[in-house]
């Protein structure tokens, strides 16, 4: 049966070790900076990459954080 992988994954999620929301959220910022730094975040943090594919809320939050950091690269520290 030849249902596209994308369809199957939408229903059944990705295959691979998924540490869950809490552990993935711990590495969100590291994953993001690797991502924005041009490093392969999915290779550096494979479990977080699996989770981001499987969890719609975490994925949406990650997108929001990514856009936020990109839009405000410099923010002054307290004076």
């Amino acid at each position, binding site marked *: *049966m*030849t*249902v*596209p*992988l994308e*369809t*199957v*994954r*939408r*229903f*059944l*999620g990705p*295959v691979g070790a*998924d540490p*869950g*929301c*809490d552990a993935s*959220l711990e590495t*969100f*910022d*590291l994953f*993001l*900076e690797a991502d924005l730094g041009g490093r392969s975040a999915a290779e550096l943090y494979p479990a977080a990459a699996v989770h981001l594919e*499987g*969890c*719609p*809320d*975490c994925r*949406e*939050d990650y997108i*929001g*954080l990514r*856009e*936020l*950091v990109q*839009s*405000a690269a410099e*923010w*002054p*520290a*307290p*004076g």
Partner: protein
Amino acid sequence: MGALGVALHRRPFGMNSWLGRVASAHGDQDVVLDSVSAPHAEFPHELDQESRLWFERLGSTGPQQADAVEALFELLHHGARHEANRRRGSLPPAIVSELDDLARQAADDAVTAVLRKLADYRGASRFTTWAWKFAILEVSATLRRAAWRGRAITIDDAAWGRLADSMPVDPLAAVEARELVAALERSVTTDLTPLQRDVFVAVVVLHAPVDVVANRRGTTRGAIYKALHDGRRTLRRALAAQGWAVDETGGAP
């Protein structure tokens, strides 16, 4: 007391402290840091100057710390507003009119979360990236709950059909997608626990946010996602047993 000697409490609005200034501007309660001593954390990573300033000043005492907490609120408020505006188009009008208040509340809660977790900051990422994570989590959870306020998470007879209809345009793939959805529906009914079934239907079929399902069940996002993850694993095995190629190669032939 945390590793930095920081104790966090919520104190009613109007207490005679630097907190009062923060509280009067941002709400009727706020975080108080008591008995704060200078941080002496050993960072496993080389901190950039800005991140070190944030960390040291939030962990200092007196006016310097108060100023740093106010700056932290501004940082997190910016993050919460940015995320609220990003989601504006997907929110009901009634929620859009509340966005400023919701972002401010979320920023307040994020300040609390950051101060509570400050001792855990190891400098592996920039402080602003680390701290904004809390703002995003707070405001997104708030907006999801607000957007689903008053909405039941109830499946109707056509819900599974809509799932299949939203699938591929290729005719052959569409037929097989409908067959997969039918097999999935049967397996959801027979193979999952009641909790796994409810969570799968809510999140995958009805597209309810995990946060909302968790809130209504009085539990955490992580607990609901685990039920979803476990349910998906059961479904994957059940469908594989029926001849569907849903193992490591996904749906490939």
